[in-house]
């Protein structure tokens, strides 16, 4: 933490290569999709001016496509088109369609009827009327549509990084996950600049008079193809396996940076969003992914965790944390919460997560079934002595744990429980706790160490050797700084992990990250 704060300019200089590649990919993605959108949208727009009864349907569908949230649309594309450029281009293309179709339609229908009639009356056939009269006169409106589509595409293309298609989104979303402002700005500023630049250039084109526009419109396809081509310049280098890492993982010392520095791992890597990463691995689009060791998707998609034999991933053991004044207020509480200590292993937690995330059982049911099977479950006493407030973050595992604690408290004590689940990320739930909004919630040692305590790198490196040293460190620090107590760990370690398809790992005989490196290095 005592390193000097890097400026945005330094960051951009340092990452100039990456920035260049991402910018080219970004422009490429924008214009490939725009080009195809024009190829599709323009004829379609013309067609519905001839078959007006279809115009409602076509514009309606294009309108609906536009309202689909970008992430969802990208998600829909994965099963059909996999990950990478293809689904990203298709998604962008779908967004670009509406303004192009609509403006073509309004542009052409808006051409002065008497001019069209004059054209017909002079003996032009329908193609001549289209190319000599309707299209030239509609061109300013059509260009306005293309301009809108371009700006939309530059914006939406930032999301392409979610599905491993590259672009400036890699910096933006990486920066958001890593809370690295320079990184966010290094992506966001060029993206905004691109949008403004293209908007400006197209506005100039729109304002040209009819004479000049003829030439400009002829040049447009060439220009579009050239710009589209930019996407392919930074062609990826090949390797035997392909890895897909989240933007967050890419930028972390306890992530890709550690893989490179500690293991010397050299693998063809693409950046991808967490939501689609597991699926992409299952569908063999990716071979190695970064994930969480207790994620239910591990089981759902038949993935195995590679052993972190050089210990670069800090332990994320889960344990309930409680404010000390709450422990005094509820004497029974600590004992009750500790009932769960040591009962849930990694594989059990994965199983439980699988039940909620993939079998769509309610967290309450999963919690109850587990407690019953461990013979920990007791029916509610219905006590009203005092109310314990339990919080949780906004993902499945935390809901399950919160449910278990609720049942235990109601069954073993005379306290009542108020739950405040789904409190967003670490910051929100932890602030709720320090501000006396909740009494207890499940936290992870790694999160406590890095996100909350912001422990310096040297200390972290020392601690990482064993799980106990980390636990002891956070326990002591939390007590000192926040008067919050870490109770006994629940047992599982929800740490970062590299994972592969079970079958492939077996075939290649890869069990650890070192195995993976050895395999990649072998010829």
């Amino acid at each position, binding site marked *: 933490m005592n390193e000097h704060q890097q400026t945005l300019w330094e960051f951009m200089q340092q990452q100039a290569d990456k920035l260049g590649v991402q910018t080219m990919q970004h422009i490429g993605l924008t214009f490939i999709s725009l080009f195809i959108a024009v190829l599709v949208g323009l004829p379609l727009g013309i067609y519905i001016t001839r078959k007006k009864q279809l115009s409602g349907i076509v514009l309606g569908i294009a309108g609906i496509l536009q309202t689909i949230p970008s992430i969802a649309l990208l998600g829909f594309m994965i099963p059909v088109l996999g990950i990478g450029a293809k689904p990203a281009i298709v998604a962008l293309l779908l967004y670009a369609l509406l303004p192009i179709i609509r403006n073509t339609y309004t542009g052409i229908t808006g051409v002065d009827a008497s001019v069209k009639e004059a054209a017909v009356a*002079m003996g032009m056939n329908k193609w*001549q009327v289209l190319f000599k009269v309707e299209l030239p006169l509609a061109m300013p409106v059509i260009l306005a549509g293309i301009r809108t589509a371009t700006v939309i595409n530059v914006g939406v293309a930032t999301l392409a990084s979610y599905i491993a298609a590259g672009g400036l989104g890699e910096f933006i979303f990486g920066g958001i996950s890593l809370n690295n402002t320079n990184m966010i700005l290094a992506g966001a500023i060029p993206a905004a600049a691109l949008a403004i630049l293209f908007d400006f250039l197209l506005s100039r084109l729109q304002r040209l008079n009819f004479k000049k526009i003829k030439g400009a419109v002829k040049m447009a396809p060439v220009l579009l193809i050239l710009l589209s081509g930019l996407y392919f310049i930074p062609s990826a280098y090949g390797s035997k396996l392909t890895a897909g890492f989240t933007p967050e993982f890419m930028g972390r010392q306890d992530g890709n940076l550690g893989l490179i520095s500690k293991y010397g791992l050299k693998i063809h890597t693409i950046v991808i969003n967490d939501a689609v990463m597991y699926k992409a691995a299952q569908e063999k689009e990716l071979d190695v992914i970064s994930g969480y060791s207790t994620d239910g998707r591990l089981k759902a998609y038949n993935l195995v965790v590679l052993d972190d034999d050089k210990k670069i991933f800090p332990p994320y053991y889960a344990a309930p944390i409680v404010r000390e004044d709450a422990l005094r207020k509820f004497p029974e509480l600590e004992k009750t919460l500790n009932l769960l200590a040591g009962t849930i292993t990694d594989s059990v937690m994965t199983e439980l997560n699988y039940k909620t995330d993939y079998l769509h059982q309610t967290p309450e049911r999963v919690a109850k079934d587990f407690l019953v099977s461990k013979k920990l479950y007791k029916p509610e006493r219905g006590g009203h002595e005092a109310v314990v407030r339990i919080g949780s973050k906004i993902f499945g595992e935390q809901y399950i744990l919160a449910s278990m604690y609720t049942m235990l408290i109601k069954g073993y004590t005379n306290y009542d429980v108020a739950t405040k689940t789904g409190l967003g990320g670490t910051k929100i739930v932890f602030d709720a706790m320090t501000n006396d909004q909740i009494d207890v919630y499940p936290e992870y040692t790694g999160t406590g160490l890095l996100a909350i305590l912001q422990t310096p790198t040297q200390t972290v490196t020392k601690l990482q050797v064993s799980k106990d040293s980390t636990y002891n460190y956070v326990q002591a620090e939390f007590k000192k700084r926040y008067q919050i107590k870490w109770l006994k760990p629940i047992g599982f370690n929800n740490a970062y992990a590299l994972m592969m398809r079970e079958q492939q790992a077996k075939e290649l005989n890869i069990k650890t990250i070192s195995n993976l490196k050895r395999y990649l290095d072998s010829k």
Partner: protein
Amino acid sequence: MIKVERLIKTFGTTKAVDGISFEVNEGENMVLLGTSGCGKTTTLKMLNRLIEPDSGTIAINGKNIHDQPAELLRRGIGYVLQNNGLFPHYTVAENIAIVPNLLKWDKAKTQKRIDELLEKLHLSKDYLNTYPNELSGGQQQRIGLARALVADPPVLLMDEPFGALDNVTRSKIHAEFLALDELKRKTIIMVTHDVQEAFELADRIALMDKGKIVQIGTPADLLFKPANDFVSDFLKEQHLQLEFKIIKLIDIWEHLPDTGKKTNTSQLSAKAGIWEALETFKFSSRESLDIFDEKSKEVKGITFDQLMAAFSKYKTHKAHE
């Protein structure tokens, strides 16, 4: 030249054109006259197949117009629209050259023809490279006419060609229109709802009402032998003025005394209408006017009072015919 038989066109429940038949002779100027919505435009547009009739036949030079491709038919028929329909994205020269380009004329021929037309229509060559929106309404209308005339089509269709112009410009263009030899050879069908215009320009007028032709004939026929009350009512308001327009000096020649007082400065042809003679009096504020009959080479000097007296004598005679 043009033969129209039992033409019917219905839009939904409106019978826009209801069984119209008429013939137009070569070189004749036929005006379709009538109130708004009586089916004039619809009739006109069926002639170049901008609208296809429900039934009935149209033949030009004995050839059914539905026996040839519509585009080819149209390239042989000039068409002038009320609000001119010039291409806003074409220069004046390009606008006029549209049909020659469709007909694949070579550049030199097109250029020569454009120059010739501009001169006839009193338009400066400076306008050739301007766009229509830089021209006045009257100039635009002339360009529209040039565009229709450029390929020298034998037939010209005009839909209220002067409707958008102010009165002064309109009468100026009327005069040019009548003087243009280019138009004298052409068979013209012109739509208007302006009675004055019809009487000034028409060889024959077809007066229409509710999709039907009420009467078809020369202006004098309509004026002096109206087929029914609709026709006389239609012309009633402007009757006197119309008479001045269609009765020529030669018609009342015999009732005009020769005062012998020749001014010899300028002469008015006896072929001119009484209206023109009245206008000359009005603008020159002269006592008397010399009129000249080309046939008999006779010249008469007349005063305003003599002119009016001769006119009323002619009318009484006419009424007793």
